[in-house]
C-alpha cells in the first residue's frame, strides 16, 4: 500500500504544482489578491504531498519491500539501516525524488521567511518555483517512477553500490542537491523581478541571503564529494576534473560570481541586468549538471540511467527554462536599466573583474566538459580532455582573480584612488613576497609555479590583515575590541571566506608540489621509506563484514624509530554485487596525511601496495570549510534578519513605485 500512496501523492503534487504555477501568477498579473494569497497554501500543499511521497519511499527501503523495483535494485536485507535510508538516493529515480523534495524544502522556506515581502512578489516567486516543480515532477512520473512494482517480488535486493556504502555518501547527495536546487530560489527571484519590473537594491537585499544559502550548501556538497573521492576511490586524488565534478563546479563558479555581483547591486544599485543574467545562468548550469549526470551521456559512478527518453526530457526542460528566461530577459531587461555610474578605478570595476574571471573560468570548464560530448554526438569521433587542460587553464585564470581579491575589499565604492590603494597595500605585498619565499624555502624543492601559488595565498592573507586592521584600529576613542565587536557579520564573513581561499590555495600548492606517490610490491616484513616515514608490511588477514568479505592489511609506520601509526587498508568483496572495493587507510595530521591502500595480491603472499605521502592535503578541505563558514556568517548578517515590519515596510513602500495598487504586506 505504501508505495501506491507515495505514487498517488506525487500525482497530487503535480496538480498542486500546476495550480501554484498558474493561479498566483495570474493573480499578480491581474491584481487579484484572492488568487495571490493562494500561493502560500498551495506551496504548503505541494511540500506536504512531496513529503509524503519521499517518506513512502524511505519507508519501503526501511521495511525492505523488495516488491518495489527501485528498492530491489538498490537495497538488500543485509544492508545496515543507515545505508538503506541512503539507498533512497542511491539510484536515478530516488535521487530525482530527492531533487523535488529539496525544491519543496526551499519553497517552504521561501513561503515561511518572506512575510516581509509584498504579496505580488511572493506570488510571482512561488509561481516560478511551482513551474520548476512541474517540470521535475513530470520527469519523475513519466520517465522515472520510483514506486514501480516488481512482480513477482524477489526474495532479496541487488544491494546498494558498494562505493555508496559510506557515511560521506549518506550526506553528499542531499547537500549537493540543496545547493543545486537552491539556485532555483535566486532564479525565481530574478524571473519574478523581470516579470514585475522592480529590480533594485531592495531586490538584491532579499535575494542575497538565499543565494548565499544555496552557495553554502553547494560548497559543502562539493567538498564532501571531493573528500569522499579521496578516501574511498583508493587512489588518493581529491579532484579529477571528471565531467560529473565539473557539472557541480560550474554552478559553483557562476554562483560565486552571483554572490559578488549581488553585493554591487545591493550596495550601489549597479550591475542589475548582469546580476539577473547570472542568476539565470547559475540555475541553468544546475539543470545542465542534472542533465549531464542523469542522462547517461557521461559514464561514471554517478551515471545511473541509460534510458535515452530521460536525457531527452531533461534536455527539453533545460531548453524551455533557458529559452523562456532569456526571452523574458531580452524583453524586460532594457526596462531594468544599468544602474548607478562608477569610476574606472572603483570597487565596482574590481568586482566586475572578479565576475569576468569567474565566468570565463566557468566557460573554460564548460568547453572542456561539453566539447567532447558534442563531437561524439555529432559523430566526429571520440576525444577526451583531461586534467592537464584544466590545470593549464585554471592557474593563469585564478592568479589575476586572487590579485583582485586582495585589492577589491580595500577599494572604495564609486571612485577609488590608485595612490591611496598602493600606499595601503605596499606592505601587504612586501610581506606576501617575503612569506612566500620563506615558506617555499622551508618546504624545500619548490618550483616556480609553487612559489606563485604560495605568493597568491600569502597575498590574500596579508591584504586581509591590512583590511582587518583598517577596520578595527583604534579610532575616535574606540578601542580595538570595541571596533571589532561592531564589525558587521557580512564583512567578517567575506574575510573568513577569502581566508578560506588562501588556505585552499596553500594546501593545493603544497600537495601538488611535495606529494610522494609510490606503488611497491611488499611481502611480510618488507619496508619502504618516504619522507622519513618507514612503512613496514606486517601481512594480510581475512575478515568478515556485515555484507562483505575483506582482506585486511596491516602496515606499521614508524618515524625515527618511534611508532606513528598502525594502518589497516582493506580490499573488500561485497557479497551481492561481487564487486571488489578498495578501502584506503589514512592517517591524518595537520601538516600531512599518510595514505595506504592495497592493490592486488601477487605470488608468494606479497601485495602491490600504494603508499602515499600527502602534505597539507587536509588544508584543501579546511579552506572549503572556511569558505562555507564565511558564507554562513554573511548570510546571517543583521540586515537580512530584521524581519520586523516596522523597519522593513517604509523602504519597501518607497522602493516599489512600479507596483502601484498592488502593494501589500503579508498578513
Amino acid at each position, binding site marked *: 500500500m505504501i508505495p501506491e500512496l507515495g505514487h498517488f501523492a506525487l500525482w497530487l503534487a503535480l496538480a498542486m504544482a500546476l495550480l501554484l504555477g498558474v493561479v498566483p501568477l495570474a493573480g499578480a498579473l491581474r491584481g487579484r489578491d484572492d488568487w495571490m494569497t493562494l500561493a502560500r497554501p498551495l506551496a504548503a500543499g505541494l511540500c506536504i504531498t512531496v513529503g509524503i511521497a519521499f517518506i513512502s519511499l524511505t519507508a519501503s527501503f526501511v521495511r525492505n519491500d523488495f516488491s518495489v523495483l527501485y528498492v530491489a535494485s538498490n537495497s538488500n536485507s543485509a544492508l545496515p539501516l543507515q545505508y538503506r535510508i541512503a539507498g533512497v538516493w542511491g539510484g536515478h529515480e530516488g535521487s530525482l525524488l530527492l531533487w523535488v523534495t529539496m525544491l519543496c524544502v526551499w519553497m517552504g522556506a521561501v513561503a515561511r521567511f518572506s512575510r516581509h515581502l509584498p504579496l505580488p512578489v511572493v506570488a510571482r516567486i512561488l509561481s516560478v518555483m511551482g513551474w520548476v516543480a512541474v517540470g521535475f515532477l513530470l520527469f519523475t512520473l513519466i520517465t522515472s517512477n520510483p514506486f514501480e512494482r516488481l512482480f513477482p517480488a524477489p526474495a532479496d535486493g541487488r544491494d546498494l*553500490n558498494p*562505493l555508496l556504502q559510506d557515511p560521506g555518501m549518506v550526506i553528499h547527495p542531499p547537500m549537493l542537491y540543496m545547493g543545486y536546487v537552491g539556485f532555483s530560489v535566486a532564479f525565481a527571484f530574478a524571473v519574478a523581478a523581470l516579470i514585475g519590473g522592480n529590480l533594485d537594491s531592495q531586490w538584491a537585499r532579499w535575494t542575497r541571503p538565499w543565494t548565499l544559502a544555496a552557495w553554502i550548501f553547494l560548497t559543502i556538497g562539493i567538498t564532501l564529494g571531493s573528500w569522499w573521492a579521496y578516501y574511498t576511490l*583508493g*587512489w588518493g586524488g581529491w579532484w579529477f576534473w571528471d565531467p560529473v565534478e565539473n557539472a557541480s563546479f560550474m554552478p559553483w563558479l557562476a554562483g560565486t560570481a552571483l554572490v559578488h555581483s549581488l553585493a554591487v547591486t545591493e550596495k550601489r544599485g549597479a550591475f542589475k541586468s548582469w546580476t539577473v543574467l547570472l542568476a539565470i545562468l547559475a540555475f541553468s548550469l544546475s539543470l545542465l549538471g542534472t542533465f549531464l549526470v542523469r542522462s547517461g551521456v557521461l*559514464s*561514471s*559512478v554517478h551515471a545511473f540511467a541509460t534510458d535515452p527518453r530521460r536525457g531527452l526530457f531533461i534536455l527539453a526542460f533545460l531548453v524551455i527554462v533557458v529559452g523562456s528566461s532569456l526571452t523574458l530577459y531580452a524583453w524586460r531587461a532594457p526596462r531594468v536599466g544599468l544602474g548607478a*555610474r562608477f*569610476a*574606472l578605478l572603483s570597487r565596482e*570595476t574590481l568586482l*566586475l573583474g572578479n565576475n*569576468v574571471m569567474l565566468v*570565463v573560468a566557468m*566557460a*573554460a570548464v564548460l*568547453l*572542456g566538459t561539453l*566539447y567532447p560530448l558534442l563531437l561524439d554526438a555529432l559523430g566526429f*569521433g*571520440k*576525444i*577526451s*580532455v*583531461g586534467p*592537464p*587542460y584544466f590545470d*593549464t*587553464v585554471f592557474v*593563469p*585564470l585564478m592568479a589575476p582573480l586572487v590579485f583582485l581579491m586582495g585589492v577589491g575589499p580595500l577599494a572604495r565604492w564609486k571612485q577609488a584612488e590608485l595612490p591611496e590603494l598602493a600606499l595601503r597595500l605596499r606592505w601587504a605585498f612586501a610581506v606576501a613576497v617575503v612569506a612566500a619565499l620563506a615558506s617555499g624555502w622551508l618546504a624545500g624543492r619548490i618550483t616556480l609555479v609553487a612559489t606563485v601559488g604560495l605568493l597568491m595565498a600569502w597575498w590574500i592573507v596579508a591584504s586581509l590583515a591590512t583590511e582587518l586592521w583598517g577596520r578595527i584600529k583604534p579610532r575616535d576613542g574606540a578601542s580595538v575590541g570595541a571596533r571589532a565587536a561592531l564589525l558587521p557579520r557580512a564583512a567578517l564573513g567575506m574575510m573568513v571566506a577569502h581566508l578560506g581561499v588562501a588556505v585552499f590555495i596553500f594546501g593545493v600548492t603544497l600537495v601538488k608540489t611535495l606529494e610522494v606517490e609510490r*606503488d*611497491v*610490491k611488499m611481502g611480510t616484513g618488507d619496508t619502504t621509506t618516504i619522507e622519513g616515514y618507514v612503512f613496514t608490511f606486517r601481512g594480510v588477514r581475512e575478515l568478515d563484514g556485515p555484507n562483505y568479505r575483506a582482506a585486511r592489511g596491516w602496515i606499521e609506520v614508524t618515524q625515527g624509530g618511534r611508532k606513528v601509526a598502525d594502518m589497516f587498508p582493506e580490499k573488500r568483496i561485497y557479497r551481492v*554485487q*561481487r*564487486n*571488489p*572495493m*578498495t578501502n584506503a587507510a589514512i592517517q591524518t595530521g595537520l601538516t600531512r596525511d599518510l595514505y595506504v*591502500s592495497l*592493490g*592486488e595480491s*601477487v605470488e608468494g603472499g606479497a601485495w*602491490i601496495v*600504494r603508499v602515499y605521502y600527502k602534505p597539507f592535503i587536509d588544508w584543501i578541505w579546511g579552506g572549503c570549510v572556511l569558505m562555507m563558514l564565511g558564507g554562513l556568517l554573511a548570510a546571517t548578517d543583521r540586515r537580512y534578519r530584521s524581519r520586523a515590519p516596522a523597519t522593513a515596510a517604509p523602504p519597501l513602500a518607497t522602493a516599489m513605485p512600479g507596483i502601484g495598487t498592488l502593494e501589500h504586506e503579508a498578513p
Partner: protein
Amino acid sequence: MKPRHKRLAIAGGVLASVAVIAALVFNAFQSNMVFFFSPSQVAAKEAPLSRTFRLGGLVEEGSVKRDGVTVTFVVTDKVKAIPVTFKGILPDLFKEGKGVVAQGRLEGDVFVAREVLAKHDENYMPPEAAEALKNAQKVNERTARSIVQSSAETAPGARP
C-alpha cells in the same frame, strides 16, 4: 575623462582580457585534447607516435602478466591486438575479457599506459571500448578475408 570614454575603456578592457584568455584557453585545449584509437587503427599506423592518446578494447584472456609493479596485457578489438605495459595498480574492476581504456603513448610497438580506466560496474563497458569492438566488427564483415590474413601475419594474438 568623459563618461562615454570611461565606458569605452571598461568595455575595451574587458573585451581585451577576455580575448587574451580565450586564446590561452583554446591553445591549452588544442594541446591537451586526447584522441581515441582502436587497436585496429593503431595497427594501421593511424595513431600518432609522439602524442598521448587513448586505446580502448577488451583485455585479452590470458594475456595479463605481472612482474612486480609492472603489468603487461593485450588490448584487442577481436581483429587486432596491441600489447600494453603499465606500472602501478590496476583499477578494481580490471579483468580479463572485460572492457578497458588505457591512456598513454606508443613506444615502438608497445603501448605504454600512464593511466588505465575501468569503470565501477561489472557489466559496464566503456563506450570507447564498445565502439572499438563495433567498428572492428564492421570492418571485419566487409573485408573479412584480407584482415584475417594480415592479422595472422602481424598480430599473432588476434582472433578474427
